């Protein structure tokens, strides 16, 4: 486990307490209690599949899974959203998976890549998609992108963030041709 994974796992653990499954339930039923909502292991798995699908890891560059984008999204929803938005998010999460079941016959986690693509294209079109599903998807996508574009690797290698620009401001220079 590299340092970043360690930090994000710590964030996940410190944000929520793992609730052990009660007798008789399968191990996968373990839930994570955030301060304001409960996420089952199944739901977390589904969100991980979703965030990985939104910003996938590719051969050249890290993706959502490397950045624990699911844990980041859940932490942001837990800490930075009003209770009514959290409620809609949680309901939308379940409605999202219900939509997968109704339209494609199984949980989002179990869909083929082609089915996932078809479903997300439909969600992005917003046509005949329940409002809470749009809220859930919008929040998840927003924070997945945020986890990606505010990551050290992205800001260092893609957006070239300079914390200390220096004293050499130029107010008017020709645009450099690529």
């Amino acid at each position, binding site marked *: 486990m590299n340092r970043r994974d360690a930090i994000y796992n710590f964030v996940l653990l410190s944000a929520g307490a793992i609730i052990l499954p009660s007798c008789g339930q399968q191990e996968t039923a373990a839930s994570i209690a955030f301060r304001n909502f409960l996420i089952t292991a199944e739901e977390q798995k589904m969100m991980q599949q979703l965030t990985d*699908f939104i910003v996938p890891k590719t051969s050249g560059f890290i993706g959502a899974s490397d950045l624990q984008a699911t844990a980041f999204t859940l932490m942001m929803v837990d800490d*930075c959203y009003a209770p009514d938005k959290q409620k809609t998010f949680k309901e939308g999460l379940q409605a999202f998976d219900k939509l997968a079941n109704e339209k494609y016959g199984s949980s989002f986690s179990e869909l083929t890549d082609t089915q996932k693509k078809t479903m997300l294209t439909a969600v992005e079109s917003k046509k005949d998609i329940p409002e809470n599903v749009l809220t859930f998807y919008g929040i998840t*996508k927003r924070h997945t*992108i945020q986890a990606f*574009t*505010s990551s050290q690797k992205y*800001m260092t290698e893609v957006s070239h963030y300079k914390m200390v620009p220096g*004293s050499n*401001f130029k107010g*008017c220079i020709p645009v450099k041709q690529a």
Partner: protein
Amino acid sequence: MGDNKNTFDAIVIGSGMSGGWAAKEFCEKGLKTLLLERGRDVKHLKDYPTTNMLPWEFKHRNQVPYDIVKDNPVISKCYAFKEDAMHFFVKDKEHPYIQEKPFDWIRGYQVGGKSIMWARQTQRWSDFDFEGPARDGFAVDWPIRYKDLAPWYSYVEKFAGISGNKDGLAELPDGEFLPPWELTCVEDHFKQMVSKTYNDRHVIFARCAHLTKPEPIHIEQGRGQCQARNLCQRGCPFGGYFNANSTTIPWAERTGNLTLRPFSVVHSIIYDEVKGKATGVRVIDTNTKQATEYFAPVIFVNAGNLNTNLILLNSVSKRFPNGLGNDNGLLGKYVAFHNYRASINAKYEGMLDSTTENGRASGAYMPRFRNVRKQEMDFLRGYAATVNAGRYSHSGGSDGFGEELKNSLMQKPELGPWYVNSQCMGETIPKVTNFVTLDGEKKDEWGIPLLKISIDYDDNDEKMIKDYLEQATEMFTKAGFTDIQTNDSKQAPGLDIHEMGGVRMGKDPATSLLNEWNQLHACKNVFVTDGACMTSTSTQNPSLTYMALTARAANHAVELMKKNEL
């Protein structure tokens, strides 16, 4: 009292923008000085916990968590109240006040006060400002003129380090400047258009408290060149901008004459009926709630505008039943502020072959052009305006998902058009109906009465907003800017963080509280040199004027003490 450990040569209440200056001046002159601060200590560098944090190191990516926003409805409105600097602002619940009318009171209780998070704009006043009340018939005449303050502006500018251009404008006098940053292409284009089109309007680079090129005095302070990080609100690891923590307070400390006492809220000033003057202050330790008295022959009140009003109102004695120095009943009245409601933004599709490189910590500025030399509008006074134009890079959009989205996010960022914005900074007219008082019953946890604030806009402010938005639209249109959008935030007074007055200066003890040296007319060894002393507000960001008034008054107090006249 001579050898009492609670006795000093001078007491300064408040360690922020102006209090730090009073402490520095007294300590340099050899006075044993007690500097009282109601909040915690904040040491330069050591107590800037977020200063070197990278964007991805903030748990919530600089967003303020919901519970904190919910618990702090007032303070969370401040633009600088973000995850990286929220530890420098008060919590609403810990420091209650009563809003008889909506007023967002933005406070930072710590050593250095709001000088840590200020916007660092430092424009001088001119006689067009000092003569305003007398010419236009509001408030009272200022007892001083530009010539009285000019040498003190120079004095504080040299020490604090102010960057700017010598623009030669009578309405915004030049000062002791370090080199300015450059205007951007489009700011310069705007400047050219404005100077060609209007003979009374000017666009300059805003003067600001940044060390663009440190002088030996700044190196001696341990400060270095501004690196244009634009993360000033966290405290600067280079000491690149002026705050009390990096500049005035350590300078006072190194004389060996300073006693800094954090966690010390002043309950009131002690008035001795026999001596006919103030002898000291009653301090409550904010942690232990223990009361202690401290004594000195001179007391400077720099508690931060409205809190200065509060302390004086709460300093009651047989001689002053309505507050210290308040013989005329005007203490707490004629409070004013700056009108920051209006702004405008637009795009510019020209000059697309040009851009900027690296950063700077300030932008362009338009000094007041309305009613400067004579009354010409249907409202009194006028407004200054910021103007900023820059290009921003965009990576691809956030449409879609998967590799398509990722490729879009990974694209080499493309330069967008020029974005231009401007913010109105309007003078407000001090009125007897804008005032603060003490609540008769409710007290804070230190037993100090809560301040009741009753301050509002008036018709003059509304007319000014309308005129600014019309004029800004006209100027933006003439400059070829497009997609022009005007905005009136309707924000409450207070959010401008420029509240002023209540203990105004004036010539006549019947109509003012302070004389031309910032001494209470009726209690000459008490000086008020923070924003509370302001007779009118003009349009300029006021901190530089507080600093100059403080240095001037402190040096005058030392002269009087030498002559045994305090």
